[in-house]
């Protein structure tokens, strides 16, 4: 074809021109800036305004950070050192660091225990969060709750050990009877666990000093440690409870269904702060005087109930989103209820529910600061109460609240990032 027009056209190029770099305005950073920041007069004005605001904020806040004082032991000293300059008194953080993290009554010589429990938490949680972690670590995850309890609250190791043995007995009983039916297995497991724990309860009370750490009453827990304990315990307890409630709500057995519906609707209709007041104030009236049920335990029960109701609703959304055919397919394979739920329905429903569950988890973690209202000294309670009421630090606000914001942001942002990662991992629908 190259010579078709040879007679009519003076010149025909028969090789490609070498590739030219695009014009400066259409490549790299310049292009990005033009397209994203200065596209049209309206966007340009917005960009300039934004840059101006950022400049004002940064230039205003920078001296405050840069002049920050980290070493004084009271606000008056700090102001003296600043001598009229703008500057932050970060020394409140360094001086009260341990109080912010552990509360004011946790014995300092035992700080290593919650720290170790926290490090082990990362190890224990890894196989749950990351499918690629070695499966053998799951054994440690199963042991972890008992270990953490022992580390944080102290006392003899025999108590958590007995409970663990009881749980294991329950598990084996469940396995033994599961073949007959799932419900039968659950019942047998429950009975075995209760019997073993009850019978074994005699051993720790007769030998309270075996492998004992210094016992620490839960009234002495505080600081960010308390938020972490409440957050982790309540999220991990409310997830299985929420699944059970969601399934119960869809059950065809009317009594189970109505118990679940009433529980969920009642808890969702009550503000968390009310439940906490109930835990703190009203429950004390129903127990005989002297039988002091641990306050932290009461609060854990209340927060767990609260969040499990929400998680149940999120999971119900996931269950409802599954096409009817999935249920029918499970039935047609001859699976019983427990098998079909475990193998077919829940894996899909939970995957759909991840964003909602994470949303509840993040909200729950932040809600743990509400316990400061019932005079528990979590991070916020420590700031509002003892630290701001001390003669040394009365009047420091930005530094303390900024610290609280920073700490909570780190945790919540990590949870959210993890859930996005998990969603990508589980995305099997080839969108």
């Amino acid at each position, binding site marked *: 074809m190259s010579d078709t027009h040879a007679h009519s056209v003076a010149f025909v190029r028969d090789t490609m021109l070498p590739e030219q770099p695009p014009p400066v305005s259409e490549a790299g950073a310049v292009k990005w800036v033009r397209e994203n920041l200065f596209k049209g007069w309206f966007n340009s004005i917005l960009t300039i305004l934004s840059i101006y605001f950022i400049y004002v904020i940064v230039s205003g806040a920078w001296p405050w950070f840069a002049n920050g004082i980290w070493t004084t032991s009271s606000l008056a000293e700090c102001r003296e050192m600043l001598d009229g300059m703008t500057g932050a008194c970060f020394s409140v953080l360094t001086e009260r660091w341990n109080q912010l993290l552990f509360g004011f009554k946790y014995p300092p010589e035992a700080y290593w225990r919650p720290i170790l429990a926290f490090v082990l938490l990362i190890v224990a949680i890894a196989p749950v969060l990351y499918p690629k972690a070695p499966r053998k670590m799951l054994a440690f995850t199963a042991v972890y709750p008992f270990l953490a309890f022992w580390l944080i609250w102290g006392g003899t190791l025999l108590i958590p050990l007995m409970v663990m043995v009881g749980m294991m007995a329950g598990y084996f009983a469940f396995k033994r009877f599961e073949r007959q039916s799932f419900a039968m297995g659950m019942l047998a497991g429950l009975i075995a666990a209760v019997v073993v724990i009850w019978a074994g309860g005699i051993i720790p009370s007769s030998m309270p000093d075996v492998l004992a750490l210094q016992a620490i009453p839960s*009234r002495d827990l505080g600081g960010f440690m308390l938020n972490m304990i409440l957050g982790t315990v309540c999220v991990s307890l409310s997830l299985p409870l929420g699944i059970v409630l969601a399934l119960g709500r869809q059950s065809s057995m009317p009594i189970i269904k109505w118990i679940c519906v009433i529980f969920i609707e009642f808890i969702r209709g009550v503000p968390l702060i009310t439940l906490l007041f109930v835990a703190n104030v009203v429950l*004390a*009236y129903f127990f005989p*005087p002297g039988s002091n049920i641990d306050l932290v335990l009461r609060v854990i029960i209340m927060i767990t109930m609260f969040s499990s109701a929400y998680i149940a609703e999120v999971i119900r959304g996931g269950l409802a989103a599954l096409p009817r055919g999935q249920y029918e397919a499970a039935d047609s394979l001859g699976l019983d209820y427990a098998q079909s739920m475990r193998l077919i329905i829940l894996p899909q429903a939970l995957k759909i529910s991840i964003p909602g569950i994470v949303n509840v988890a993040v909200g729950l973690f932040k809600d743990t600061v509400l316990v400061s209202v019932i005079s528990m000294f979590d991070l916020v*309670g420590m700031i509002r*109460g003892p630290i701001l009421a*001390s003669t040394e630090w*009365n009047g420091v606000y930005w530094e303390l609240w900024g610290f609280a914001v920073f700490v909570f942001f780190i945790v919540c942002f990590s949870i959210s990032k993890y859930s996005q990662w998990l969603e990508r991992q589980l995305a099997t629908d080839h969108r």
Partner: protein
Amino acid sequence: MKKIAILGAMTVAGLSAGVASAATLDDVKARGKLNCGVITGLVGFAAPNANGEWEGFDVGVCRAVAAAVLGDPTAVEFVPTTGKTRFTALASGEIDLLARNTTWTFSRDVDLGFEFVGINYYDGQGFMVPKELGVSSAKELDGATVCIQTGTTTELNLADFFRSNNISYEPVPIETNAEAQPLYLEGACDVYTTDASGLAATRAAFENPGDHVVLPEIISKEPLGPLVRHGDNQWGDIARWTLNALIAAEELGVTSANVEELGAAAGNNPEINRLLGTEGTLGEMLGLDADWAKRAIMAGGNYGELFEKNIGENTPIGLARGLNAQWTEGGLLYSPPFR
């Protein structure tokens, strides 16, 4: 929430009247610790220090009672309470004694079923305004926005004061003193009102205390004192007379420095002798031993020493004795005789 708390307390006061009246003294002795309700934190009155030990004026009362009953001023389990949980904590028996700058009012004493055992601080509600506002009397505050703590008597006093003077105000409700300070400093409210002692403590923590004035009007009586449950008069007597012992000790010149010496043997002053147990059987009448008052005074000093150490003029709070001076010096502190 306050209403709920009060309703709850009322219901329970009825329910638990029989249960809670079991001898508190025996419970405390069996437990080996006094459960004492305190505030979650108020400068000078009660707050844990950097080592986690509770310190303050109200804390001193707890320690004195513990010393009198158990012989050990550190045998106290401090139970922090908020304005909303304090009464239920006491009514339900979670605490034996509430020393949390609580105003003695008719309804709290009679209706809620508590027994105020005395007054350890005479306070009154005042106003603080920025100097630049140019206000010299609380009656000029028409239309002002006022920061006020919820669930306290100050809220009610404020309404009464403005209504009786026919002026209007806009309340900005806040939870604790600590929250009020930044709100006030940032101008979210023109006026901050709370007990005069609280105002002084707040103002002392400002960067420029001189820019703010406390108005001369004191619009209420706020007698603050420790309280116990109705129905256990022996325990109430112990708390009442421990507080009286601290006040009488100041009047009689018994301090933590000389109490050991004065209590070693009977001296010339019969009232000191009776107080310190070298004469008479006052301790026995209370169900305690003879040295009870001596121990209470040794725990943190007499009333004057507690005052000077925690909230007096040499502390950052810098409160003058004022109404809280002994009656012999023009104040209101007047302990009944130890006889």
